[in-house]
């Protein structure tokens, strides 16, 4: 076998895999290879990566329905997060603890997610073609609006309000006494330094399965067709606007669940400007997994989240070990936004 044929075979493979993804996978592997030389424990690194996978994967999953229905990347994720925060704070307010607290948070968040998602869906249906920019700003404005509401809403659980004023929620609220770690510690596997947050991963798998099944129903099929070619879907008797709206509601709800999963692992509820920049990492993770502006699968979510979180956890420790410099934040910004830029400027995506 000569070089030419290898090249011939390799090129389309590289093309389908996407050059940026290849670079980042290579980079991540390199990190793992040089980790021992930098005095970094690989098992601890893996644990970290898996924990963050459990934390973030549901948020990334929230991208899938909207991409499927052609609403573009869900830059409006903060809206879903806000619903989740409402549910989470109310669950704490009513003093539910443990797994019940976690489930109640989801249950309480659901009506908010449905209502906000529906409104958001109606809005996006009226601005077809300009969804992404508007989604971004809807997300931002809603975060800013909720900043006002966090101050004004009549919460009075002492675990949450400012001690001195007695009103207004704190910027970070600990959930350790409520539902902190309920998923992460469920069936946790510990082998030496390696710990696997089984519960969180199972929960993600459960949601992913639901979405996977949904996409195989009649409605799910219609949704995919709407994203692939809305005119075709309309000509086949599908109500395009309804499908899009449904997908937005689903995405918003997943965003709400996602943030609650995030909190149980992180240990804190972050209010005010907290949700502000949460959309970007989720968007770029799913793109990193190989999704495009109008195509995304569960596999994209899994691969993307693993790669993205892997880079985020491994780079700082390895870099620190090697050159005593923490460049993780910068790398995060460049990788995540670079990924989005790449997706936005890919030629084939423009002809939608």
């Amino acid at each position, binding site marked *: 076998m000569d070089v030419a044929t290898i090249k011939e075979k390799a090129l389309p493979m590289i093309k389908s895999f996407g050059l940026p993804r290849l670079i980042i996978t290579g980079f991540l592997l390199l990190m793992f290879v040089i980790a021992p030389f930098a005095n970094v424990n690989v098992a601890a690194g893996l644990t970290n990566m898996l924990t963050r996978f459990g934390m973030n994967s549901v948020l990334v999953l929230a991208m899938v329905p909207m991409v499927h229905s052609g609403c573009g990347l869900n830059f409006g994720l903060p809206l879903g997060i806000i619903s989740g925060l409402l549910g989470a704070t109310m669950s704490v307010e009513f003093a539910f603890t443990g797994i019940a607290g976690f489930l109640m948070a989801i249950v309480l968040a659901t009506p908010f997610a449905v209502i906000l998602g529906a409104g958001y869906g109606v809005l996006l249906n009226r601005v077809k073609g300009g969804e992404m920019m508007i989604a971004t700003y809807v997300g931002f404005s809603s975060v*800013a609006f909720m900043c006002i509401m966090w101050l004004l809403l009549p919460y009075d659980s002492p675990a949450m309000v400012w001690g001195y004023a007695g009103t207004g929620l704190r910027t970070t609220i600990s959930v350790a006494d409520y539902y902190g770690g309920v998923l992460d510690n469920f069936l946790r596997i510990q082998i030496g330094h390696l710990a696997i947050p089984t519960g969180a991963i199972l929960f993600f798998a459960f949601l992913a399965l639901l979405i996977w099944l949904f996409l195989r129903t009649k409605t799910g099929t219609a949704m995919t067709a709407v994203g692939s070619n809305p005119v075709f879907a309309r000509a086949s008797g599908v109500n395009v606007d309804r499908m899009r709206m449904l997908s937005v509601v689903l995405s918003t709800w997943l965003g709400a669940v996602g943030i609650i999963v995030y909190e149980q692992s992180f240990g804190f509820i972050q209010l005010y400007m907290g949700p502000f920049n949460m959309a970007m990492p989720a968007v770029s993770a799913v793109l990193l997994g190989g999704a495009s502006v109008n195509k995304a699968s569960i596999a994209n979510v899994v691969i993307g989240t693993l790669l993205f979180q892997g880079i985020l956890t491994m780079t700082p420790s390895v870099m620190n070990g090697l050159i005593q410099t923490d460049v993780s934040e910068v790398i995060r910004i460049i990788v995540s936004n670079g990924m989005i830029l790449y997706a936005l400027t890919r030629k084939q995506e423009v002809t939608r």
Partner: protein
Amino acid sequence: MKRPQVNPKELLINNLVPILFIVICIIGIPLSGYSGTYLLNEILSRLGRNSFLVLSLLIPVMAGMGLNFGMTLGAMAGQIGLIFVSDWSIVGIPGMVLAAIISVPISVILGYMCGTILNRAKGREMVTSYIIGFFMNGVYQLFVLYFMGSIIPIKSSALVLPRGYGIRNTVNLESMRKSLDNLIPFNIFGASVPLATFILVALFCLFIVWFRRTKLGQDMRAVGQDMEVARQAGIKVERTRVLSIILSTVFAGFGMIIYLQNIGTLNTYNSHSQIGMFSIAALLVGGASVDKANIRNVFIGIILFHLMFTIAPTVGRNLIGEAQLGEYFRVFVSYGVITLALVLYEMRKRRAERIALERGEEVVA
């Protein structure tokens, strides 16, 4: 052949954003309890420091590339210029001029890059330029936080972090503060007027007016309205679009320098990242939209937007006893304004398409 008559409802919708702001300001000013002189002083100072930045947004709008969220790139270039100048301890007006000179090549390179990328993302320029802003912020941090002091020589200990590389959180520009604003001292009703800055802004306005009348300006307008027709007529569409972004970036760099000389401190990692958003919000408040913006929009917008900005915290405190509330309120309003303006623009675009269709049919009939 008649002009379409003005429909009061349409007039309201088209000017919804400015009207909303006028209402907010009319209600808010008495509640804030600020004196007229104070407000005048504030507004004049803010008008001076922001006009140049907001004006730099006009050119890409003309070329049909929407609101240039990538103006942060220019702001970064301006800041890099200022960092160097303060390291060399060049102060006052000479410092500003030197910083501007340094910023130009950086702006041109960044603008060229941004323009080229935007040419690959036609139809979604805004979201792309927005992401470019974020992306370049990462690159900027890489340079300023890790390269400056290690690879790029910066020796002033007032600038470099104690660890030996990277620029500190804030760069003190006290030696440059208001050197332009106070170059020609002038007072009106007890409020100081940054006359020299206004002269500069006026010159820039004249430039824009003149620019519209050049061949390049005409080409930009043509490209902005219909790329295909412009291409058929032999206009180099891509090049024209890149030029418009480069110009905008360069002027945004100058604008940032003017802005920071008024403020007097440079927040190395934060100053630029919000400037694009606030400038765009101000422009939209002035009644501009994604495809139409003029000099009048700029000034009306800055006055209204910053009036709201000035009074919001006190109104919040006086009303509910929380200054923080006012802070959040103004953040909400800034984002809300952009959202509203974008939504209105998209909806208007779709309606215009509908009307064009109907009109086409009438002619056939």
